């Protein structure tokens, strides 16, 4: 893996199964698509209105009517469908979206995500994040384990929650962590990273099973 972001994206990609409908957030999560083999028959949804998001278009072939949720030019795959915003969020809220992958600012010991606001500093708005976290069948947070030396996996979110729904998996540059009723369980280590290093970088308590293998990438 060339860098931490690619590592995270490649590991998240392993969660995607045949025929799923998947929404990838802007930024780091959008890298996941590059690690999903075409043979899986996965459809990517962009919440601005397309099912079957494709790669970037060739230079000179951009269509101003076909962009992703970040406003960047994209293509669509054969079998794609255009949808309006009501249908787009109906699919999301109604549980028809099999998986969403979002970035995070914090995840707490209960597995709850905060990713839309830093009071007094940054008010970007929640966009589609609250509906995605509330409605998607499976929610995966893809983020750096720490920012500016601070753990992003915290006892209790100090930032406003995106949803009270517990996310299903957290994938960072150090670890794969699975929230459940029991708490946060450390499932996998990044290559070359020890359990002790992960514990040292994590504010929230982690449950440690007997076997905590390295990610297989």
């Amino acid at each position: 893996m060339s860098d931490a972001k690619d590592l995270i994206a490649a590991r998240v990609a392993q969660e995607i199964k045949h025929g799923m409908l998947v929404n990838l957030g802007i930024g780091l999560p959008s890298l996941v698509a590059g690690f999903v083999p075409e043979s899986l028959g996965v459809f990517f949804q962009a919440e601005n209105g397309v099912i079957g998001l494709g790669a970037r278009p060739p230079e000179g072939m951009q269509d101003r009517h076909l962009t992703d949720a970040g406003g960047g030019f994209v293509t669509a795959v054969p079998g794609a469908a255009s949808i309006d915003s009501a249908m787009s969020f109906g699919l999301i809220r109604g549980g028809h979206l099999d998986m969403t992958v979002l970035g995070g600012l914090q995840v707490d010991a209960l597995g709850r995500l905060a990713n839309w606001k830093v009071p007094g500093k940054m008010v970007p708005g929640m966009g589609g994040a609250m509906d995605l976290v509330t409605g998607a069948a499976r929610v995966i947070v893809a983020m750096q384990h720490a920012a500016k030396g601070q753990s992003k996996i915290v006892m209790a979110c100090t930032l406003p929650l995106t949803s009270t729904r517990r996310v299903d998996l957290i994938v960072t540059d150090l670890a794969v962590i699975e929230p459940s009723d029991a708490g946060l369980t450390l499932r996998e280590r990044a290559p070359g990273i020890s359990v002790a290093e992960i514990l040292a970088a994590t504010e929230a308590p982690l449950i440690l099973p007997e076997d905590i293998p390295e990610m297989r990438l």
Partner: protein
Amino acid sequence: MKGALKPHEAAALIAPGASLMIGGFMGVGTPERMIDALVTRGVGDLTVIANDTAMPGRGIGKLVSAGLVRHLIVSHIGLNPETQARVIAGDITCELVPQGTLVERIRAGGMGLGGVLTPTGLGTEVQDGKQVVTVEGRPFLVETPLKADFALIAAWQADYVGNLNYLLTAHNFNPIMALAGARVIAEPDAIVPVGMIPPDAVKTPGVLVDHLLTGAFA
């Protein structure tokens, strides 16, 4: 349908202080000629209901930069630093609404429903001050319907009776907002004769559209 107007004629219909729903997602599917005419005319003190404010120099971003916006009801302003700065400075008041809630509130306003019962936002800041209703044992937020004095819609084709269709991700909020404006002004890329848009390809029936802007090449 009451005929095709030049952008400056359409802008003259809109008084300062009006509430506008404006279609588009990061400027894609936004009626740019209509917005340019509002900026030229300097129609200010506007309430804008939209997904986002695009970026400076594009779509709703032009209204923001021109200082014409007083209040925003949007899901996202993160990609327009100028909007962020004006909101933080208090020059623009801003209600942030989850995107799926926003589109349903507009639909409810346009379709005569009393609001939206959604799980989105429960237990978060979005819940503050809102009614919670329990249905079949589960709690839901009551989100109120939205309407506006005008809906400004971008479309691909319009026919002479106002039927509209849209291209790819330029649908977004446009077909929903067309239901919820007291007056609906549509800006198509092209106006085609009746019969060129088959009934099954119509996404917004012409009965919803009050005015068309002349085609982009008229």
